[in-house]
């Protein structure tokens, strides 16, 4: 008898708990609706959230540090979230955030992939949280269709691919053979950056692309692939174009192991600290910086300005709601300025938050 009733009691108490929880969350949701008027938050009530994949790569760690720097400048703290590159985990974190008090919530989010952006945007818009997304969004999803999705910031991969391509061509003296290390082939970043290299090659007919291989943005894979390509093409390889710095650093290790360090020019993208050190030491030729700390700060700054009423969403022009941000080519001429990544508080003032718009998304 007792044994039989135990599951029933458990079930009953569970459903009671569920009912109680539903009641609570309904209350909270009601509260946020009442205070949901745009731009009326007191600065101290604003909650800042920065969400990236993980803190185990220097770029995303510096992104969150930039968010902290902005938060400190307005006397707040940033909630640092990471989701280990797991789309499900990201959605779960966002749902939990949006289930709380969302009236003054500002989120600066790096969606895991294009398709992950849609539910985040819809959820935030419904809950009334201020949202800035970066890097990934489906082409047909437009911030101007939403009230609370203020802006989407990304970078022109074709441009950066060409910038380092041109730097590489210059470094090898305008003619000779190069090899290319591509990223994960089915990502927009890999496709765009490689298109940039192809544009460089079209302008420089004396430079031949000896081989191109996918090394999936990974240092270890780039090391193996480069070693293989160096045995395949030998001394014909004068330059190595890599779609990110991790692969460029893997290529540098391969050159060192093959005893050819310093003879081959290497370029990458992202401006990770090790790449900057390599450029300073003359082992690497160039990289491109999207300025991670700025990205971490700017998303929060835009949201903060709108939430506190310093900036009205209606006043933000359509071009500023989805834009390519400025990126910077780093060579040994200017590497000194980038060695210690820092944010400039002036960039985050409400009048300046759209200063780095390089062009609208095409």
């Amino acid at each position, binding site marked *: 008898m007792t044994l039989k009733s135990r599951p029933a009691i458990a079930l009953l108490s569970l459903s009671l708990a569920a009912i109680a929880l539903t009641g609570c969350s309904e209350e909270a949701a009601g509260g946020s609706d009442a205070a949901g008027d745009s731009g009326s938050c007191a600065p101290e009530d604003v909650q800042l959230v920065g969400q990236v994949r*993980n*803190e*185990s*790569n*220097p770029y995303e*760690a*510096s992104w969150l*540090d930039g968010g902290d720097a902005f938060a400190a400048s307005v006397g707040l703290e940033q909630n640092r979230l990471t989701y*280990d590159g797991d789309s499900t985990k990201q959605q779960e974190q966002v749902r939990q955030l949006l289930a709380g008090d969302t009236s003054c919530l500002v989120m600066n989010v790096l969606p895991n992939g294009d398709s992950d952006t849609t539910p985040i945007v819809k959820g935030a818009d419904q809950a009334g949280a201020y949202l800035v997304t970066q890097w990934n969004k489906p082409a047909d999803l437009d911030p101007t269709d939403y009230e609370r999705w203020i802006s989407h910031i990304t970078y022109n991969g074709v441009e950066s691919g060409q910038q380092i391509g041109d730097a590489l061509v210059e470094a090898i003296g305008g003619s000779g053979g190069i090899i290319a290390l*591509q990223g994960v*082939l089915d990502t927009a970043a890999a496709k765009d950056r490689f298109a940039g290299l192809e544009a460089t090659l079209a302008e420089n007919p004396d430079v031949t692309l000896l*081989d*191109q*291989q*996918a090394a999936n943005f*990974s*240092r*270890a894979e780039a*090391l*193996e*692939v480069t*070693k*293989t*390509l160096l*045995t*395949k093409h030998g001394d014909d390889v004068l330059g190595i174009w890599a779609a990110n710095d991790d692969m460029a*650093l*893997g290529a540098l*290790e391969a050159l*060192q*192991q093959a005893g050819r360090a310093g003879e081959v020019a290497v370029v990458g993208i992202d401006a*990770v*600290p*090790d790449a900057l050190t390599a450029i300073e030491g003359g082992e690497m030729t160039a990289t491109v910086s999207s300025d991670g700390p700025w990205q971490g700060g700017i998303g929060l700054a835009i949201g903060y300005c709108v939430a506190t009423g310093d900036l009205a969403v209606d006043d933000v022009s359509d071009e500023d709601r989805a834009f390519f941000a400025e990126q910077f080519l780093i060579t040994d001429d200017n590497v000194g300025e980038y060695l210690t990544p820092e944010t400039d508080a002036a960039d985050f003032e409400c009048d300046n938050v759209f200063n780095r718009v390089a062009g609208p998304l095409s």
Partner: protein
Amino acid sequence: MTSPAEDSREVVTAPPRPRRGVSLREAGPPVALIAIFTVFAALSSQFRTVGNIQNILDAAAVLAVVACGITFVLMMGSIDLSAAGVMATSALAVALLVENNRNDNDLGLIGIVLAVLLAASLGALSGVLLVLLKVPSFMTTLGVSAIGLGLATLMFAGVQPNISDAGLESWAVERLLGFTYLTWIAAGCVLVGWLIQRYTRLGRYAYAIGGAEEVLALSGVKVAPYKVAVFTLAGAFYGLGGVMVTSQLGAGLVQAGKGYDFLAITAAVVGGTLLTGGRGGVLHTTVGVLLIVVLTNGLVQVGVSPYWQGGVQGLIVVAAVAAAVVPLRHRNQVVK
């Protein structure tokens, strides 16, 4: 009285037949390796250069060590998905313990040993969880992998540790008789693995556990300590793998072991180690490792487009496994 004697006579006379069968059965993967090697050598003049063969063996080093560890677990009929996390922990640990740009440690060889021990203790944790809590190895090792990645991320703390320890850096660069130290280390590991498998109680029991654990337990063998020991041994191999990756890349990366878990299992299975346990071994796995590395290298050397490589590689692996298990197939065989 007579029937037991007859039985034992049968048992005594039985061995020669299976043994002959075994040698035939196990010829599949080496034959596939030689066939693939020959095809690539015929197609590409660059592939058959001495430089490229050195390159292939260098590239196989880390995978060979990791696969060596995983083989013992697979022989036991368990599975181990913890390689990525354990390698990450040992990669970060060793990068922080030898001379580096993050702290003043300069422990050299002791640092390497400590990192391997740390990895071994993570392996032991997998084993203990499996034995004490009776959680399937699939789940415990997946959990331990996450723990390992977590530990590594904590140690990473936003700044990548670059190693400047001359000894560890030389592993990937210095050569002895044409091969890097890493390749020799891997060869040493395979030898040690084979000796353990062949001549120690641990190795023999690993086979026996995979073949018929209940029988072993019923005949009075305490199986649990051996299971823990096998996972510990595997952890130590992964740890050494993580140290080797750190030596190659010159830095401790959280991603050091990324992909090695499934690659090592693939290598073991391609080489003829069965996922159900009780069959295969370190040498089989080494053949599987070489098969995969030759394939990766060869596809680049003959100039297959990167857009096609993934698919082509998968197809050849499946074909190689299918060809390798042809002699093993028999009527009524159950495949899960």
